């Protein structure tokens, strides 16, 4: 089984499933006690991790399975299970080279857990509220967090040192780094339950583009009429897409001006 051959799928039906990308066949089904929040393959594609919610009396756990040992999947016995007592994990990705995972918590904390021992390697608290999303740069050397505290921040993957901050007036649900420009796109908006008026103006459901080095906004894309839940750049950096609470996925191709635009510096 190659690393391009399978996908993980998480579901609110308290399960985690392993699929074959080419055939669409379900390879494994792992039952969990509570909803699965995040999941991912390590760089080598051999180890998978997923985290579960603190829910219905169950704790938040991160489980690690090594696919090279089929018995782990068959018996639903991860080789490691890290409990998170304090604040549940709301987003997580694998670090570079598959040595650790980087998890964002409900409290706004970031933890780097070793994938071997499970111990916390680095802990930082740069956000004041829940971290909704973590996305790595293409080379995995840095990552951007999206938080309910109205900001997105850029961190170094190894040291978890904060490099940059991007401020908005609304909770940020998702943030993605361009693969070939020093750009970051932020998506978010007023939480659905907090929107009291029918006006989309007040929700500010726009995708917003910031320059990575200057932390300055240089563009906005309107269109969604509900909060944006996730944003992603195309791997070639020539387009991006956003998924919204309104039920739409919007795919935008950049204008030529986007590629020519430069800050005066």
């Amino acid at each position, binding site marked *: 089984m190659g690393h391009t051959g399978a996908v993980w799928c998480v579901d609110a039906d308290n399960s985690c499933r392993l699929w074959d990308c080419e055939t669409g066949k379900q390879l494994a089904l792992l039952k969990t006690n509570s909803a699965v929040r995040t999941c991912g393959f390590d760089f080598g594609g051999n180890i998978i991790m997923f985290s579960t919610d603190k829910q219905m009396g169950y704790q938040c756990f991160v489980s690690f399975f090594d696919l090279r040992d089929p018995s782990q999947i068959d018996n639903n016995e991860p080789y490691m299970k890290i409990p998170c007592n304090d604040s549940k994990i709301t987003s997580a990705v694998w670090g570079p080279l598959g040595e650790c995972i980087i998890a964002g918590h409900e409290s706004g904390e970031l933890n780097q857990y070793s994938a071997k021992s499970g111990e916390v390697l680095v802990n930082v608290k740069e956000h004041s509220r829940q971290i909704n999303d973590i996305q790595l740069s293409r080379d995995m*050397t840095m990552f951007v967090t999206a938080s309910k505290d109205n900001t997105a921040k850029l961190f170094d993957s190894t040291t978890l040192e904060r*490099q940059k901050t991007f401020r908005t007036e609304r909770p940020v649900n998702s943030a993605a780094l361009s*693969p070939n420009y020093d750009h970051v796109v932020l998506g978010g908006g007023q939480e659905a339950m907090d929107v009291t008026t029918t006006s989309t103006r*007040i929700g500010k459901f726009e995708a917003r583009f910031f320059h990575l080095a200057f932390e300055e906004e240089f563009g906005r894309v309107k*269109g969604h009429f509900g909060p944006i839940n996730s944003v992603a750049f195309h*791997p070639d950096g020539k387009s991006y897409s956003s998924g919204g609470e309104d039920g739409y996925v919007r795919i935008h191709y*950049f*204008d030529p001006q986007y590629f020519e635009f430069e800050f005066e510096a």
Partner: protein
Amino acid sequence: MQDAENVAVPEAAEERAEPGQQQPAAEPPPDEGCCGPRGPALRRRQGQRPLVRRWRSRRPGRSRRARPRESGLGTSAPTAGAQAASEDAGGNEGSAAEAEPRALENGDADEPSFSDPEDFVDDVSEEELLGDVLKDRPQEADGIDSVIVVDNVPQVGPDRLEKLKNVIHKIFSKFGKITNDFYPEEDGKTKGYIFLEYASPAHAVDAVKNADGYKLDKQHTFRVNLFTDFDKYMTISDEWDIPEKQPFKDLGNLRYWLEEAECRDQYSVIFESGDRTSIFWNDVKDPVSIEERARWTETYVRWSPKGTYLATFHQRGIALWGGEKFKQIQRFSHQGVQLIDFSPCERYLVTFSPLMDTQDDPQAIIIWDILTGHKKRGFHCESSAHWPIFKWSHDGKFFARMTLDTLSIYETPSMGLLDKKSLKISGIKDFSWSPGGNIIAFWVPEDKDIPARVTLMQLPTRQEIRVRNLFNVVDCKLHWQKNGDYLCVKVDRTPKGTQGVVTNFEIFRMREKQVPVDVVEMKETIIAFAWEPNGSKFAVLHGEAPRISVSFYHVKNNGKIELIMWIVTREMFDKQQANTIFWSPQGQFVVLAGLRSMNGALAFVDTSDCTVMNIAEHYMASDVEWDPTGRYVVTSVSWWSHKVDNAYWLWTFQGRLLQKNNKDRFCQLLWRPRPPTLLSQEQIKQIKKDLKKYSKIFEQKDRLSQSKASKELVERRRTMMEDFRKYRKMAQELYMEQKNERLELRGGVDTDELDSNVDDWEEETIEFFVTEEIIPLGNQE
């Protein structure tokens, strides 16, 4: 609680106690000996004692020490009742015995006995039990409290004594019935002082309060004192102690902010839902923070009218801050203070608290001297609904308050009533001081056949300088122009034979002889009215939503009132509307705003040539604040009225947006006022004439600072880019170092670039038909 009620109402208790007395055996005589030494006032309650005792004995588990107030009777229990309970509780062993048989008789046989054991010794004093109500115990009065001494009474012989007595009687019987008088005589003439006795001490107090200082004629001004104060005056030392000299406290230059080289203004900002307060310099680029403090105030802040002080509110009172470092300058202790008002001269502070007032010590409203920090006078206050209760004259010499049928004018610094008496104005509905002179305008509604009336009165002479009668009046509002040049009385009328209300604006031209009045009639509902400060125009918003119009009028020198501009706001705003008018403090320019429910539409109008300079929007804006110079306007969304997008935006007077300042849970922005200019009218004219000369200098300055700003920005970006490059270089070096490890992890396949193994690709082209929508990037608001 039935029994408790009996305790609380002694009269009723006595009546209902009748059946209890049918058992005389239960009333052992030894009681008499026990409470014998007590005053006569206490003895009369003996009849009710059994009942009271029953109340106590029915309360299971309650010890003998139980205080009446703890049992829910509270402090409201009238004195006699409480005393009854106390005497009982602190009372006599003899009574304990009969409590039990009573309980049996009442069918409460299964209740345990709460009576004291035989050997109980009560060691609780009355003071301890109800010290709080003992002071109200009835006391013997010898009538001396009702006597007053009046000095400076004319000295007359027997021939005119009867006449004098008549006059005195007429003046002093106003306060109560005079039961006795005494006119000491010497050598056939009265001595010049007299004694009067009233039926009750309250009358005497009343007479002292009101008749002291009464001017009988030019030579005789009465001095009235209580006879009981005699001792007080006797003990006053004849020698005068020189008051100790207070060291001078140098507070620095309290007006330092006016000397700022760039002539910038300051403003205060409350944010984080009130937890933090900041003071900023207003600057075109970015606000410059001067001071920021956590929990500086508990509710909100106020600037004094000339900007010298910043007042902060606290549970225990008001604090004033000022000077360069915003040090505390003065404190005024007024528990639970809610509202304040400065006198226009900044000498006095008026504070209101609903907590402190008592009958004999008026403390609801307190007037303070700001310089000394001393309390000048306290007042009662029934309702603070129409704050300020006291309205100040423009120079701070007088302040006035309106009560039912009365207008009371006080003078400073004595804080006493002007000429010792209030004005009787039956039916007075509202009054207002002219901001340009000591003139009061007030109005009185129609009363049967007497028309409604607007009166202008000069002070302190109380001369009526203009009276205008009005008919079919529903309501009047008084609007003074800022300099006091004009008064507009907005009169809502229902003319005979018509339905609905029409509005007249009665314009009084104050600077002209006999104050001529002109009238502008409006058929539509009036939403807002505002005078141009320092000018002769006024703006009116009128009509019903969704068709609200704005009209501008100009009062010409010859008195003609000319409509100079009329616009339907929704046409101006493209479907939005306005509901408030904000004139620049310098006049000419005006901002029309649709606040709160009207979504924050803004129109910037120049009334000199009647042009709309700009139309803009600050969505959900709740406040508009002009800076004191009329150069800038701030619009804001306050957390107090709206919970999202709390921010304040800075605009030029022409409506060009300069800054958007988002502040977490922003509450309030207040500009620091400036004192009036020291320049004469001529000097101001000269400056206006030479404006071109000045504007050249300023333009050059602006250009310099702009290029400096853009240079700074570019410089900042450059360093940010350099730092970022440095970081990326480091990260990429590490990345390259790990290349082998990556290759190893992915079985020797290089995945570092998208096309690193392009040879393995198979390309397949599939065409879809999609609609394309072009959205230009970079179109920020």
